[in-house]
C-alpha cells in the first residue's frame, strides 16, 4: 500500500495516541483534534492511520473501547488507556526521549 506510513511514523503515531488518551477517555475525533493542536500542524497526520492505530492498540490490549455518548449526544466509540497501555506509554516515551537526546547531541555545535 503506497500511502502506508513508514515504520517510524507508525510507532510515532502509537505513542501520540497513547499520550492523548492519558488525558482521559476520548473518542477518535477528539484524539485526532488533540494531536493536531499539539503538533501545530508540523506533522502531517491523516485520520485513517490514526483509527487503524486505535484498533491495533485495542487488539494489543493497550487501550479499551466502549460505546458511549458524545458531548452533542451522538453514539461514539470511546477509548481509554488500560494499565498495560499506561506502561507502554511510559516505556515508549522514555525511548523517544533517549532517541531525541542522542540526535540533539549530534546536532549541537561542538
Amino acid at each position, binding site marked *: 500500500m503506497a500511502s502506508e506510513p513508514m515504520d517510524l511514523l507508525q510507532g510515532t503515531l502509537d505513542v501520540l495516541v497513547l499520550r492523548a488518551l492519558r488525558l482521559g477517555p476520548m473518542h477518535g475525533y477528539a484524539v485526532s483534534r488533540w494531536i493536531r493542536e499539539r503538533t501545530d500542524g508540523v506533522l502531517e497526520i*491523516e485520520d*485513517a492511520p490514526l483509527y*487503524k492505530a486505535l*484498533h491495533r492498540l485495542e487488539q494489543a490490549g493497550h487501550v479499551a473501547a466502549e460505546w458511549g455518548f458524545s458531548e452533542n449526544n451522538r453514539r*461514539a466509540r470511546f477509548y481509554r488507556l488500560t494499565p498495560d497501555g499506561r506502561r507502554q506509554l511510559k516505556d515508549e516515551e522514555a525511548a523517544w526521549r533517549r532517541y531525541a537526546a542522542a540526535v540533539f547531541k549530534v546536532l549541537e555545535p561542538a
Partner: protein
Amino acid sequence: MRRFFQLPWRTRQQIRADVDDELSFHLDMRIDALVASGMSRDAARAQAIREFGDIDDARRYIRAVDHDIEAARRRSDYMNDLRSDIVYAVRKLRGSPMFTLTAVLTLALGIGANTAIFSVVNGVLLKPLPFPQQDRLVRIQFRQQGHGDASTPPDLADFRTRARGFDGFSHFEGYTANLVREHAEPERLVGAEVSANWFSLLRVRPLHGRFFSVGEDSPSAPQVVVLSEPLWRRDFAADPAIVGKQLQINAQLMTVVGIAPDGQGYPMSAELWVPTRFSARDLSDATRGARWLGMLGRVKDGMPLETAKAEVEGIEKQMEGLFPEQFKERRARAIQLQTAIVGDLQRPLYVIMAAVAVVLLIACANVANLMLVRATARESEMAIRTALGAGRSRLVRQLVTESMLLSIVGAAAGVAFAKWGMGVLIAMAPADLPRVKTAAIDGTALAVTAGAALVIGLLFGVLPAVQTSAGDLANALRAGARGARTRRQANRTKRFIVAAEVALAVTLLTGAGLLIRSFRELMAVNPGFQPDHIMTMRVLLPGKTYDTLPKIASFARQLESRAAALPGVRAAALGNAVPLDGTSFWLTFVVRGSAPVRPSDQPSASIRTVTPNYFTVLGTPLLRGRAFAADDRVNAPRVAIVNQTFVKRFMANEDPIGKYVEIGWTIDGVRQGGQIVGVVGDVRDDALNADVDPTFYLPFDQTPVEGIVITARTAAPPASITSALRGVVRDLDPTLPVYDVQTMEQHVAASVSRQRFYATLLGVFATVALVLAAVGLYGVIAYAVSQRTHELGVRVALGATGTRISRMVIGEGVILTAAGVLVGLVASLGGARIIAKLLYNVKSSDPVTFVGVALLLGVVAACASYIPARRAARVDPLVAMRGD
C-alpha cells in the same frame, strides 16, 4: 481485564455497522466544526475526507482487526467459563462426597475391568503378529479323514515347485534342547526345527549375526543354532561375542550363528531355532504317509488371499492325482497365521469381553440413576440459576462439565485398577493362551478407555439435563413441586434403568452359572486315576549319548529303582507320558491272525510305554489278566496291556487276552507290539472332557523311549520329594536337565485351566454385576420412600400398619426385579446358545441355573428393599405430614 458480566460477542454484521458508525461520527464532527468556522458544507465535507486519507483501506483494516479481537475474546470467555465450570463442578462434587465417591468407584470398576480385559483380548487376538506384512503369512494345513493338520517333507517340495502365488514355504516342528553350560545347571529349552528360509519368510532381521543360509538344512552341513534375545540375555549376559561360539546342545556341538530379536516366539514360544535336516529318505515318496511337520507360507504381495487359498487346494488335487493312496481323503487349506494361532479362543474371549462390557453398562446405569436423583435434588438450584440469567445451554454445559469430571476421574482410577487387574489376569491366565504374557495396557487400550469415558461423561451430563430442562423450571422453583409431572417422569426413568440393570445382571449370572456348573461337571469326571500324592518330572535322553536301547533301558532301571528307594516314596514308575500332560502318540496296528486290511484302513490307537508299577502309582485299576512284571524284559516274550475302550472298540465280542497286536512302529528292525496279557480301566489321557482314547500299553523295558516321565506316589505332600527326585537324576547323569516338574494334581488343574479361567472371570463379573444391581435397586427404592414420606404418613394415619407399609415397599422392589429377571432370562436363553460350545455336560438351557438365578435375584431384591421398607414402616405420620 476481568469482566463481571458478559457482553454478547459481536457478529460480523455488527462489527461492520460499528466501524461505519465510528468513522461517520468522525466525519460528521469534522464537517460540523468546519461549517461552524464558516465553510460551506460541501467544501467542509471535501476537506474532512481529504484530511482523513484512505478511508476504504482504514475500514477494511479496522474490520479485520476487530474481527480478530472478537474471536480472541470468544476464546478467552470460553476458557474462563470452562475454568469456572470446573471450579464450580469440583466444589459441587466435593460438597457431596458420598455421591462422588460412589460414582467414581462404580465407574472405575466398570472402566478398569473393561480396560484390563480389552488389553488382554487385544494382546491375544487383535494385535498383529510381530512380523512385517504378517497378514500375508498363512498356515498350510492338511486334514486327513478329519484328523490333524501336519504335512510331510515331500509336501514342502511339492508346494515350492508348484505354487506361483507364494514367496515361499517353510516347515517347522517342535524341538527340545538340553543345553549344558559350564558352571550352570543343565537346562531344557523349547525350540523349533525350521527350514533354512524360515526367518526370511517371516521377514525378520537378526539382532546380531545372521540367520540360516541356504543349504544349512541339509544333513551334511555343520550344526548351527539361532538363539532368541530373551535366552541370550538370560544365559549369555547379552554378549554379542557368543555369535560364532559353539554350544553343547543335546550332546552335540552347535555353532551360534545369530540372535533373533525378542517377540519372535513363534512357533511354540521357541527360544532357539535349528534347521530341519532331512535325509534323502525323508524327502523320498516313502515318507508321504508320515505327517508331523507344520507348514507356513507367505503369499506374494498383491496376490489376493483367496486366489492363494484356491491355489493351495488346487495343488493338493494335483498331488492326489499322482499319489491317490497317500492323499486319500486329504484336504489342504491355507488359513491366515493369526487366525490359526488364535483358533478356538475367539469365541470365549469375545464372550468375556461382552460380559465385561455388560458390567460397564450396569455401572453406567447405576451412575445414571445417581445423577438423576441428584438432578432432581438440584432442580431448585438450576431454577435459581436460570432466573439469574444462565441460559439453558450454559446449564447443560455445567452439568456436562460435572459428569465429564466424574468420568475422567473414574477413568483415571479405572486405569490404575486395570493395571493391577492385568497382573492378576496374566497370572491366572492359562499358560497356553498365546501371547498373553506380552499383553499390556497400550495406546489402543487407553484410547478405548478415553473414548468410553468421553461417551459416558457426555451421556450422563446430557441425560439429567434433558430430564431437568424438560420440566418447567419455574414451576420447580415455586413449589418444590412434589408429585409434579417431571418428578414422576424422572422416577419412571429410574425404575426403567434399574429393571434394565437387573436384566443385564441376569444374563451375566446365567452365563457364569452355566460355565461354573460346567466346570464342576468337568471336575466331577472320573479321570481313571487318583491324582493326589503323585509327583511327576521329565527328562529327555539325548540320542547322541543314549544311542542304544540297552543304554536307555539301563538308565531307566536305575532311575526307577533309586526313585522307589527314596524315603517317602511309596511307589515309582516310568512312562513316556502321564495323563493330561498334553502328549499323545497314535499309531496304526493290526491284530495277528485277523483278515488283512489295506494300510490306509488300519485302525489306530494311542500308544504308551510304561514300567510295571505305572498303574499302581496312578491308581488305575487292573480289570482283567495281569499287569506288567519285572520279567517282561527285552528277551522275554513281548506283551501288552489295553484299556477298556480299546476292548470295546476293537474286540467287543472276543476275549482280548492272548491276542497278539502289532503296531506300526519298528525299532532297530523289530516290529513293536505284544500279546495282550491284561485289561486296565479307562484313563482320560487327553482331557477330562474328551472321549477316552483306545490305548495300547507296552512294557518300557521292551519298548524304551528317550523321553521319560518319572512318577512317584508319596506318603507326604508330593512336592516334598521334588529335590530328592531331582537329585536321583543328577547322580545318574549331571548333564540331564529335569523339566515339567508337576504334581499330578497340577496336571489336572492345567488341563482345565482355560475352563477355570473363563468360569472365574465370568463369575467375578457376574458377582460385581449382582452387587451393582442390588445397590441400584436399593438406591431407587430408598429414594422413592424418602420422596413419599408424606404419602406414607397419610397412610399410617389412616390406619395402615408398619408391616403393611413395608410389605408394600418390598413388593415394589420385587416387582421391579421380576420385570428385569423376566427380560433377562429370555435374553439369556438366546445368549447361552453362544456359549453352548464351551459347556460340558450342561445344556445351555439348564433349568437349575435359570431357576437358581431367578431365585437369587428375588432374594437379593427383597434384601435390597428391606432396609428402605423398614424405614418406611417407621414413618411418624405427624412428622411426615407436618414436614411440608
